[in-house]
């Protein structure tokens, strides 16, 4: 990949990946580490980066792998040391948004990934299945369970039987 394309890719998708990985990691510093590590990893394979159809998707997959690896190590360490959950450190968040970050952190990691990929990265169920290497049915189940648990804090997830459409 030539320098100009590389710079365009970096400037175009760095911010988006930060937003998506923040929802997965629940911590801005962690999301920054993960996304930067994904770029470093991608830059060590610059030729391959230039050949893939969707470099941003490729980098996002690397970032998710890094986040998953770090999450497992961090949770075990915190359990061993009996540490309290770390506070939300993104300045300027309203109480509602702090509650949302906390609720995201309490989702199982696989549901958090599915929610972030669907509702922040706007990937289709199929694209999520291909990113995570799992069947589409599994994606749907994870999305539905995650949405159910976030419904009190996310307006679009509220299941209002009064407004259902009935296709009869």
């Amino acid at each position, binding site marked *: 990949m030539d320098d100009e394309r590389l710079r365009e890719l970096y400037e175009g998708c760095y911010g988006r990946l930060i937003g998506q990985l923040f929802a997965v990691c629940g911590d801005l510093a962690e999301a920054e580490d993960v996304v930067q*590590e994904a770029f470093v990893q991608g830059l060590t394979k610059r030729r391959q980066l230039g*050949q893939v159809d969707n470099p941003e998707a490729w980098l996002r997959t*690397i970032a998710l792998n890094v986040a998953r690896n770090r999450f497992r190590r961090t*949770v075990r360490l915190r359990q061993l040391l009996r540490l309290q959950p770390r506070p939300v450190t993104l300045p300027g*968040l309203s109480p509602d948004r702090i509650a949302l970050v906390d609720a995201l952190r*309490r989702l199982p990691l696989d549901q958090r990934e599915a929610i972030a990929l669907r509702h922040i990265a706007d990937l289709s169920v199929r694209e999520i299945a291909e990113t995570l*290497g799992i069947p589409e049915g599994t994606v749907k189940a994870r999305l539905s369970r995650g949405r159910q648990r976030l419904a009190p804090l*996310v307006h679009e997830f509220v299941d209002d039987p009064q407004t259902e459409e009935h296709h009869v």
Partner: protein
Amino acid sequence: MSELKDLAWQAQSQSPPPELETLLARSRARVRRRRFVAVAASLAAIAVPAVVVLSQQERDVTPDPATLAVRPRSGHELAHSPDAQLVSVLPLAGGNWVALWNRCRAQDPEEAPVCWSTMAFKSASGVEFTEPADDFPVLEPHGDLTYGFRNVHDDVKNRRLIIFENGRPIERPLTVSGTTTAVGDGLILNLAGKLVVVDPRTGRAQGLVLPADLGSPNRYRHDSTGRWWLVKNRKLAWTADGRTWTRESIATKQSWTDASSLDGRTILLHNHDDPYKGTGSYQRSRDSGKTWETIQDPNKWVLQFEAVFNDGTGLVTDITLRNAITTGLYRIAADGAIGAESQTQYALGSIESHGDTLVGLVEGPAITSPSPVPTGTPTPLPPTPEPIRKVALSTNRGVDWQLFEPR
């Protein structure tokens, strides 16, 4: 803007990107370090071993970081690694199955892990493994067919088709050019959102041109009679050759979940295209889609159909686990009513069916309470879930299940 997107935007706006040159420098340092480690490993391998008497402390060395992330020597070794994880499992014809295992390791805690995968497959020869690969093949259950792809989003030269013959995965390079309206002996596959007709013997594919009213179907299936059918715009349309299409009217515009018997005679469709709403009813056909009946679901659960059989029975999951239930997998009676649980011992996910056989990943012990609703008060983080390594298999429509590790 949705709450989640607003949250993401706030995070993004407070994180200016570092200079690209900083990351470039890190990547160059990483490449130099790897080359040094690789050269050192090569020299160590060819050096004449010397007899050295070591103290106990010297013998207790940590594993060479260079070997942590190297390619597993075989799929068997990968699947039996202590850190191997099961990603997915699918039943195949004849009681066979295929399971995808992966293993991710990082040479350096700050580095992205390197992941390798293998397919464990059971055929008449027993359980075998494919060679380890540094990608994740995506396997698709498709009615009575199972197929897969590698590297669909990567360099087009690397794309590969995976098909299963007598339980064994066969890989071929996949090339796409031109379009067609005929299916012939080909397979209609969904290649990254586009339907293509693939010749499974050669891996050559052409884009499938559908009639204008059927373009971009939400769902499509193949059944054992050779029929391809799809759901679009309140129609169930089917074809055997790709040229002649028969359309049956259905009550639902689109359905986010469906199940059909192996020969396609019995079909279940949801009454809604939104996977997050329970509508209190669903649609069932007992004659390959010609006529339909509405089945009531007073629970109004969000249903995911797992299997259906020609006597009208089947299995369905309530994926929201809104009620105080143990596993979420329920039997459908012959009249369509949702009844008792199929089993009560463990939580199953990613359930797939093929004929009377069902298989699912064992995600953990049975869940004994409804999903907790966040209250805004911070609570301790949940424990790290154990890696998934077991599957539950039933060969009699979910009556009896057996657990095993598919490796």
